[in-house]
């Protein structure tokens, strides 16, 4: 996915209205966009939401006379809340995400991008403004934003493990971080805390490969990170399994704690599982408490 229009020749990609990533994300999103997706609460907006008896604090001009004339009480017409939210996405594009243990499984990066973009599609269709962290793509609405986002997400990073940028987050907006969270925990912690400082809530989605959960190795092994910068040699990989799994659990625990402290939501997703489930969870997580 180093090319924005990967997997297809340039001409074909130009002819296509959406890059494959976008198409995939559209496909995934369409699976979710089945029912209602409105905010389903009263607020400022254009569409009718409900009639409710007028309260003393309601201004007189807000009374719906047509409805009130049919009864003795006064009614006020509520509009559905239509204030657009800003949502900032961070999808880890570091080398560690390009790991896929099996040909039949997508790499973590592919799955993360697809999920991120699908989420963006849903949100934009829901009327929100979606952007990327780090001032690369400020939140906007519209299909054009999706094209651009797809292009940016297709880029890859050279670093081993990615770290989120907390810049460009609007106060009280929402954020979505998708990564394997296997690298140094410190930048993530910082970013979350800074986000929390600004009143930004959101969701952390940890995407892991099944092999990273199972650690099915044995014998003398040299483990290398995806760029080769980090390496660890062991004579009996099988003996490391429990300790590795302990550490992984510890990492998840830490993230979970962090999320709880900052009011975020945390979930782990495996590339071996269905992407739709993860998308549903993401959508729900972003929908909550908004």
């Amino acid at each position: 996915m180093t090319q924005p229009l990967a997997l297809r020749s340039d001409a074909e990609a130009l002819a296509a209205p959406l890059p494959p990533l976008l198409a995939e994300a559209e496909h995934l999103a369409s699976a979710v966009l089945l029912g209602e997706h409105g905010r389903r609460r009263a607020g400022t907006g254009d569409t009718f939401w409900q009639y409710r008896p007028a309260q003393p604090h309601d201004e007189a001009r807000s009374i719906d006379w047509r409805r009130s004339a049919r009864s003795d009480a006064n009614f006020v017409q509520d509009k559905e809340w239509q204030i657009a939210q800003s949502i900032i996405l961070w999808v880890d594009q570091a080398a560690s995400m390009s790991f896929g243990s099996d040909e039949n499984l997508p790499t973590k990066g592919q799955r993360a991008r697809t999920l991120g973009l699908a989420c963006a599609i849903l949100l934009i269709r829901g009327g929100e403004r979606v952007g990327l962290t780090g001032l690369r793509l400020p939140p906007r609405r519209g299909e054009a934003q999706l094209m651009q986002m797809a292009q940016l997400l297709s880029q890859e990073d050279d670093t081993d493990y990615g770290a989120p940028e907390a810049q460009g987050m609007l106060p009280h907006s929402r954020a979505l971080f998708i990564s394997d969270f296997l690298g140094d925990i410190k930048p993530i912690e910082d970013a979350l805390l800074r986000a929390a400082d600004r009143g930004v809530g959101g969701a952390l989605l940890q995407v892991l490969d099944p092999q990273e959960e199972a650690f099915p190795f044995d014998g003398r092994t040299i483990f290398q990170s995806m760029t080769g910068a980090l390496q660890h040699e062991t004579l009996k990989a099988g003996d490391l399994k429990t300790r590795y799994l302990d550490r992984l659990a510890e990492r998840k625990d830490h993230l979970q704690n962090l999320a709880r402290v900052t009011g975020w939501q945390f979930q782990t997703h495996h590339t071996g599982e269905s992407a739709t489930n993860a998308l549903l969870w993401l959508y729900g997580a972003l929908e909550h408490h908004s």
Partner: protein
Amino acid sequence: MWLIGPIGFAAPWLLLGLIALPILWILLRAVPPAPIRRRFPGVALLLGLTDDENQSDRTPWWLLLLRILAVAAAIIGFAGPVLNPQNAREGSGDLVIILDGSWAGAPSWQARIDRVDTLLTEAALADRRTAVINLSALPATEELPFAAPGDWQNRLPGIQPQPWQPIDPAAWFTETTGNFETYWISDGLDWDGREDLLAALETRGGVTVFQTPRQNLGLRPARFEDGEVIVSATRSPVGNPLETTITAIGLDPAGVERQLAAVPLIFEPGEAVAETAMVLPPELRNRITRFEVTGRRSAGAVSLTDDALKRREVALIAGRDDREGLELLSPLFYLREALEPTADIIDGTLDDILLANPDVIIFADVANLAGTEAEAVLEWVERGGMLLRFAGPRLAASDQGRNVVDPLLPVRLRSGGRSVGGAMSWGEPKTLAPFAEDSPFFGLPIPDDVTVTSQVMAQPDPTLADSVIAQLTDGTPLVTRTLAGDGQIVLVHVTANAEWSSLPLSGLFVQMLERLAVSTRPSTPDAAELAGTTWLPNRVMDGYGSLEDGSALPGVAGEVLAEGIPGPDLLPGLYAGGDRQLAINVIGEDTVLNVAGWPTRIAIEGMDVVRETALKGWLLSATMMLLLIDVIASLAIGGRLRGPRADVAAALAVALLWTPDAQAQTAEDFALRATTEVVLAHVLTGDAEIDEISQAGLLGLSQTLFRRTSIEPAAPIGVDLENDELAFFPFLYWPVTADQPLPSREAYAKLNRYLRSGGMIMFDTRDADSARFGSGSPEGQRLQAIARSLDIPGIEQIPPDHVLTRTFYLLQDFPGRYASRDVWVEAAPINAEQVDGMPFRNLNDGVTPVIIGGNDWARAWAVDANGRRMFPVGRGMSGERQREIALRFGVNVIMHVLTGNYKSDQVHVPDLLDRLGQ
């Protein structure tokens, strides 16, 4: 060649490589298994984790051992190990290999021939001229038959043991010229002239003897003694106890040769001769044709029996009968009853009887003989006959043997006899006294109820006691006997019927007769008697002791037979002259077997041929196996067997281990292919072209069916009768080729099951252009051979109203590529009748199991891959018409197979409609 025990090494210095093994051990030990490099993002979490202290980074010892063993096996393998290496025999010049070639070598003849073969191979390597001579069958030429060893190796199967021992081969050798070395393959038995031959050979060159101390058994002729068959055998060398079994072989009542009896024969340690008795019912004994030592294929272990064991011929002569019709009072009645089962009874006048030369003549109460008759009888007795006389009123009343000893009576008789225990006499009836030890009846139990009321009395005289062989309790003789010449005369002092005693009513009577009759043997014919006669070989024996028909062989003069020494002129066997039979056996009554001894100057070698076995291949395979195990073990140690790619390895292992399952898989596939759709099948004949045509023909028929009918068959299948299940196919097309192999028994069973369960086979001999049905074309003959074991009902030519003529198309011709009308199907039942008003007879229910013809239907039906006809049929339009009819016939056949007699049932439609009231 360097030897360790039985193993030699071609390149022993390579074994020095074994010294390097410990170094290799240390080297291998120092090198831990190579690591695998894995990309793994989770490495960040692994940083800082250390391995356990006690974890060794060295290769495990057992893996080291495996590798060391593999290397050691390779080193030893390349050093060229040979099990039982053979040192080449040295020598040059001409070589003569002689074999005793007697019956004694027959049991291990192959070992001898192998030894000769090995010697010849060595001689071939040394480029020596050789001659192989069987001493028992010397060459007809006077020169030593020298030839290249390879030639002799080809002729070895023709050298066979002979059923005699060498007869003076030294004389033959002295005729020959030249010097040579001799290898002597000895049978281990001594024979006359052996030393002479050895001396003769030693004048020509060195002699090496090959001999193994092997037990040789010689079975002596069986003989009778007191009612028992005594079989004895001699052995050489005399040594440890030996137990073997002697079987008596003869024809059973059905005429099949089988084992009639078997007795163990035990050689005591140090005894050369063992003897055992067989007690056989006369019925069995009479049937015995030969005795054999079980498990010895040698002429010496077979002993043929001749007349000696045959049924006695017994002549019965009674005193003049003046009454008639009183069967139970006939003096001969009880004798007849007693002798009938065990002897051939001759009736007639005394003159006639004497001409027949019976073994026994029984006089029941015969008193007087005409002078010449008495002389003739006496002469017969002296030649070995046995005269058994019973007393009676006539004998008692006569003066016979009163004052002088009658030559035909064993004792003198007192006149009148006596009578005890009767109504008019004093005393109790007398019973029998126990038999004396020297009596032939000794040992027979005496029943209590045998009583004697009358008897003729012997005149007391000094020799009387010697003659008595049975007496009454009061000491009066009951049976007396005297010897006359080679024969004997026995007098029983009572009648042969129950008038004077109850003896003839008892079982003792039969036993006594048996003892007496059995103990008379025909004398061995002597040279004088045999002189001038010619005896024809009936069955002759070969060196292995198997009998062959000898009727093609020339007769043998009696003089030769009298000598009884088997040789090229007198093959052991059964010889017939007139009504007598004489057995010539390899082992005589008193043949003694001696071990062939050799002077100390003669080198003696064993007979065993040990084959060189090169172990290199085995060791190198072992190396490969060990290395393979090492590969797997190393992978396991290195964690490469488990982990991300384990599935590949597992799949590979499964593929390697589960090949048999693949077969099952194909069988299942076959079943599925054959059963998911209707499939026409043809029998694979093994002739690729025919099979291809059958396939194409059935394809064409299938396509036609698909187009024209509701039968929509899949592509046809070739069926291998031996391996494939037939039950799936409704129809088999079987093109018969002349050189088709016959199906196996299992395949026949399958075919018959197929035919009985409603399958149809269409036999096509494809020869209707040149042959008529049943004529002797090669295919027709093959078809007959194939069909012989098939369950095919009676057949007839397709009748005009057969259901095949109307199952789909209305046809009266059944052409294929040829238009013969000789097409045969199961015959209609005899009671098939044409009902009035019906167009057809009510014919056989069900499907004809066979259609037999030669019209080469497959060629007429055949289409190629593009759907074009492969073979022309006839000429022009009429040919195309014929092809059309052929296809229609095919459609009818398949319709018939699949719908049975449905069209036949149509004849009932009017009836059915009638019944329904329509």
